[in-house]
């Protein structure tokens, strides 16, 4: 047990003024002194690239690591639908307060008021920033920006660039970053993977990384370390995350003392293309924006054998419209996912292996015409056709929920600093803003808020007192020890020479977690997972087969290291789910539900952030609780009816 004090450092004062007051109260670094500070950033997605570009613009020296060949490949690029902002351009009643409230409510009252309010405030600046960089958001004919609506909202506040919003936002941040690289303010280390964090006197002072081309182990040191390394959805093996997305950077920091918060808050996205066979390597998301015009239904009769267009309207069950009339097909993700799962569970699933529900554009095509639908969703529908071989203009699409996003992550305070001094965590890698469920089009908002606006304003408070101090030399024994440990671990995996590939263990882990800790969880299923994961982990360390050597480009070595970390992390995720004896947002415990099957929260015992402290291999991590205090919103039962 340690003496960790979980101080969220939320500024005093009225909610609306907290961020402004805080920006005034932090220490600053004067422009001429900024070049004396070095910041190491890991990850080049929306959060990492925007932070690196902005810190570079301000005059700091930034070292940016990404395991991709180019910063532009980060998985933010795959976000399709859009980004929220409280601009209220459509004049439909939106405001900072409403975006704040929708986000808190959408997160099922498990996020911090102050963080979420700041996010809503900053959202408007993000759109301005992106437009000034040349992000080609959709426009009306008069040249004004266009909006659409997303789940969990009754206003249109989502800005979009066809179905490629994430791509365009990431390219905007990447281009700003490229400019700073050209100017020499940011030093880019591509194909470089962080494998450990280095601490000295209780502070994060740098990290150890592997050059993925040569296999060489190098250290990087700075006045502060920033992780913007994304989410851990691939712990489920099949998810909509990119193949390389992993928990390693966050997990390495966790094992050095950073707390992992709410890992059981994982989001299952309702509209993905159902798996077709056992070789499937990942699942593909179909943007939530499709729910603006697509209607979700299943046949009323579980024995139905006709093809969808032959089933008359009276024999279809538009179950979301029926159950949630005011939000209809735009019910939040967790609610829509569970509703779909239940239809499939009672045998009403559609498709060759009855593992999906229909998402139907027929009515919208009749109302608006196919060209309008093509204009709005063309690239998504084309992607669907490519993957399934079916034409969504003629046949309803088949969709099913899949793991998509993780709300949990490393614990951070209001400054986005973890409990480890000098370690900042941005974007999906932290736990901060989405509570137990993220609303659509809010991930891009948070990543860019953290990187463009929050970190650059808060990091000065930590840097300023270090003026005149050089970063710890990477020749320091503390770095040499960490390098040796990383080399040993990598060599150890290669030396096992077992019989199964790293992917085999990843797939097995994914099966355990999806089955026992997926859309619905119970004490029994979670206990089962807690029994199975350590056995699998043991098998991995005795039986993994990693071919080739560690001193060259070796994707098996990369993969094995990531799977090894998932095998540890997965257990903590399940433990968190076991201890949270309530249902909220994406965390649905079957023991805790209302009569009509909705999530039943327990605010008396669980209105807190569960932050886990690593206690060494073989020991149960220690749970720390940060109480969530609601001064401005009333904790209500979510209703989307």
């Amino acid at each position, binding site marked *: 047990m340690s003496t960790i004090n979980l101080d969220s450092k939320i500024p005093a004062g009225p909610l609306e003024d907290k961020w402004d007051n805080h920006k005034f109260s932090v220490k600053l670094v004067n422009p001429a002194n900024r070049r004396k500070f070095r910041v190491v950033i890991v990850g080049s997605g929306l959060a990492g690239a925007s932070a690196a570009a902005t810190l570079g613009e301000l005059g700091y020296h930034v070292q940016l690591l990404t395991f991709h060949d180019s910063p532009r490949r980060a998985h933010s690029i795959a976000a399709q639908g859009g980004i929220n902002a409280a601009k209220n351009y459509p004049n439909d009643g939106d405001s900072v307060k409403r975006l704040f409230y929708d986000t808190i409510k959408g997160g099922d009252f498990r996020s911090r008021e102050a963080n979420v309010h700041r996010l809503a405030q900053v959202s408007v600046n993000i759109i301005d920033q992106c437009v*000034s960089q040349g992000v080609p958001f959709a426009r009306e004919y008069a040249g004004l920006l266009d909006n659409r609506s997303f789940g969990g909202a009754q206003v249109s506040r989502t800005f979009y660039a066809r179905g490629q919003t994430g791509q365009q936002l990431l390219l905007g941040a990447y281009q700003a970053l490229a400019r700073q690289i050209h100017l020499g303010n940011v030093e880019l280390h591509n194909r470089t993977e962080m494998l450990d964090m280095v601490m000295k006197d209780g502070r994060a002072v740098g990290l150890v990384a592997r050059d993925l081309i040569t296999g060489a182990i190098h250290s990087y040191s700075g006045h502060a370390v920033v992780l913007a390394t994304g989410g851990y959805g691939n712990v489920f093996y099949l998810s909509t995350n990119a193949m390389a997305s992993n928990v390693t950077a966050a997990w390495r920091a966790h094992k050095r003392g950073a707390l992992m918060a709410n890992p059981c808050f994982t989001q299952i996205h309702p509209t993905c293309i159902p798996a077709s066979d056992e070789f499937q390597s990942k699942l593909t998301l179909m943007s939530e924006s499709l729910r603006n015009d697509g209607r979700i239904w299943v046949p009323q009769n579980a024995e139905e054998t006709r093809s969808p267009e032959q089933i008359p309207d009276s024999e279809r069950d538009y179950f979301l419209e029926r159950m949630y009339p005011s939000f209809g097909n735009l019910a939040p993700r967790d609610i829509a996912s569970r509703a779909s799962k239940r239809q499939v569970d009672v045998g009403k699933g559609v498709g060759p292996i009855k593992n999906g529900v229909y998402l139907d554009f027929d009515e919208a095509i009749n109302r608006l015409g196919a060209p309008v639908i093509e204009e709005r969703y063309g690239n998504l529908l084309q992607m669907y056709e490519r993957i399934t071989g079916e034409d969504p203009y003629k046949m309803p699409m088949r969709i099913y929920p899949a793991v998509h996003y993780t709300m949990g992550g490393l614990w951070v305070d209001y400054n986005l600093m973890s409990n480890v001094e000098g370690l900042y965590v941005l974007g999906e890698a932290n736990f901060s803003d989405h509570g137990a469920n993220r609303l659509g089009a809010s991930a891009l908002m948070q990543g860019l808020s953290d990187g463009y606006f929050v970190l650059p304003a808060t990091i000065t408070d930590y840097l300023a007192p270090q003026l005149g101090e050089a970063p710890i030399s990477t020749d320091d024994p503390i770095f040499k020890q960490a390098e040796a440990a990383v080399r040993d671990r990598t060599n150890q995996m290669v030396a096992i020479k077992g019989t199964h*590939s790293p992917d085999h263990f990843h797939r097995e882990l994914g099966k355990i977690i999806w089955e026992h800790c997926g859309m619905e969880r119970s004490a029994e299923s979670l206990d089962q997972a807690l029994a199975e994961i350590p056995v699998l982990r043991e098998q991995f360390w005795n039986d993994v087969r990693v071919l080739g050597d560690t001193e060259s480009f070796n994707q098996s070595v990369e993969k094995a290291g990531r799977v090894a970390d998932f095998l540890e992390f997965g257990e903590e995720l399940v433990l968190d789910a076991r201890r949270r004896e309530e249902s909220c947002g994406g965390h649905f415990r079957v023991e805790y539900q209302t009569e009509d099957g909705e999530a039943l929260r327990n605010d008396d015992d669980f209105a807190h952030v569960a932050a886990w402290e690593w206690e060494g291999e073989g020991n149960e991590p220690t749970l720390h609780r940060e109480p969530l205090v609601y001064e401005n919103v009333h904790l209500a039962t979510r209703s989307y009816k």
Partner: protein
Amino acid sequence: MKLTLKIWRQDGPTAKGRFETYEMPAVVPDMSFLEMIDVLNERLIAEEAEPIAFDHDCREGICGSCSMMINGIPHGPERGTATCQLHMRKFKDGQHITVEPWRARSFPIIKDLAVDRSPLDRIIEAGGYISAPTGAARDANEILIPKEAADAAMDAAACIGCGACVAACPNGAAQLFTAAKYSHLSLLPQGQPERWTRAIGMVDEMERWFGSCTNFGECETACPKEISIDFIALLNRDYIKAQFKNRRLSGQKS
């Protein structure tokens, strides 16, 4: 489906490469091309042979990582489709398929099918941006952009930076990549102040690394986002104009 794969194997950047042939007795038509390679790699590991190295990540056709020459065509036979989105139902039972890395001198091979495409980043760094430091922006709706202009910019901005255009080009030119990014920015009002320095910066950097464009048009055919070579015309025109443009007058409407 039964297929025969002939795949380029190369142990490292300086090693001598060779083709290896693999029989694939049971390919499922619904598999993607990369899932077929996954299956082959699992088999190779089981046989204690090193798996095939290849770049891939999102598998949704947007990150631009995947990069395979399939029967001599970048990203294979289906138009407008990246390798990761290509499905085996597009091939015939019994077919022989040759798989190679991107063919371009500017993209040296790292291992097997993985190549180094970082020269593309250098072109962006040399001017493929609009200088807009964080915090300096005015309200987004103060910049009116006619829908047609925004749509044209978006058509160009759809580039995923995979490098298929370079691999397809007999000259190894990166003209389509450069033109797409150049046009995205230069078609927008926000991109006007730096338009002429951008043209020179990006083209000169491109010329340092890549061959020259002679209008073969192979790039457009290979592009997984079907980006039009019309953008190359815009880039070429602007590059010439930029040579004698009096920049002190660039605040005026032309």
